[in-house]
C-alpha cells in the first residue's frame, strides 16, 4: 500500500526592493526548516522561467502564498500561472495584528527584527496546519 505524505506548498514574495520581502523570505525559510516533512517551496519566478513541473506546483500541492506588500505578487502569480492558492497571507496585516512595526532594512536582520520574523513564521505554520487538516 502506498503511503502518501501530504505537503503544503509555500510561495514567498521575494521582495528584493522592500524590507518586508526579506522578512517574507526569512519567515518562509524558518517554516520550511522547522517543518521539512510537511512543506515544500518553489521560487516564484520559476512559474515563468521553469517548465511544466513548476507551473503545476499549485495543482500538486495546496499552496500558501506570503506577500510583503499590497501588490501581492506571490498570490497573483500563483493564481495566474499555477493554480488558486489555498491561503494568502499578507505581511503588513500580520504585523498589524501582532502590534509590530515593519522592518526598515533590506538585509542583515538581527535580534531587532526577530519578533517580526517569528510572528510571520507562526502565522505561516498555523496556516500550514490548517491546510493539512483540511486536505
Amino acid at each position, binding site marked *: 500500500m502506498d503511503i502518501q505524505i501530504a505537503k503544503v506548498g509555500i510561495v514567498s514574495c521575494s521582495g*528584493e526592493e522592500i524590507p518586508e520581502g526579506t522578512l517574507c523570505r*526569512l519567515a518562509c*525559510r524558518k517554516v520550511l526548516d522547522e517543518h521539512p516533512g510537511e512543506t515544500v517551496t518553489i*521560487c*516564484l*519566478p520559476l512559474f515563468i*522561467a521553469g517548465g511544466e513541473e513548476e507551473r503545476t506546483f499549485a495543482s500538486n500541492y495546496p499552496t500558501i502564498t506570503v506577500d510583503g506588500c499590497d*501588490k501581492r505578487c*506571490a498570490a497573483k502569480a500563483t493564481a495566474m500561472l499555477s493554480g488558486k492558492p489555498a491561503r494568502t497571507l499578507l505581511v503588513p496585516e500580520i504585523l498589524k495584528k501582532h502590534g509590530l512595526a515593519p522592518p526598515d532594512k533590506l*538585509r542583515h536582520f538581527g535580534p531587532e527584527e526577530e519578533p517580526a520574523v517569528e510572528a510571520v513564521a507562526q502565522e505561516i505554520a498555523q496556516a500550514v496546519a490548517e491546510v493539512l487538516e483540511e486536505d
Partner: protein
Amino acid sequence: MAKKSEKVVVLPCSGIGKVYGALARETTYELMEKVRPGLAVTTCLPLLVINDPEAVALVRENPVITIDGCPKDCAKKSVEAVGGNLAKTYQAIKFYKEHKELKPEGIAEVNETGRRLAQVAAAEVAEEIDKLAAGEEA
C-alpha cells in the same frame, strides 16, 4: 555607443533554497547601499512575473544586470520575458569559483564569509555598471 544611463538595474535571484541566491541578493544590496548608491537600483523580480507596469518600464528603459543563483536563470528569463534591456548576466557561483577562499553559507541570508564574497562580487559588477552608465557595452 549606447546612450548614457542614470540608473543601472541589478536583478538578483529570488530563491530561498540555495546559498547562491542569497549571495546574489547580498551582492545587489552591497551595490545599492555602499558601492554604487543611487546608480545601482533594483526591483522585485516577482513584479516582472505579474507584469507590473512600473517594474516593466524600469527594466525596459535602463540597462539591466542579472545575477542568478542557479542554472534555471529566473532573473535573466524574467527580464527577457518582458522585453527588458538585458545588458549583462552573471551566475553567482562564478564569484565563488574565482575566490574559493570565501565559501558562502546560509540560505535566506549569507554568513560573514558570504558577505565578504559579496563585497568582492560587487566590486566586479560595479565595473560593468560604470561602463553601462557611461554608455559603453558591458
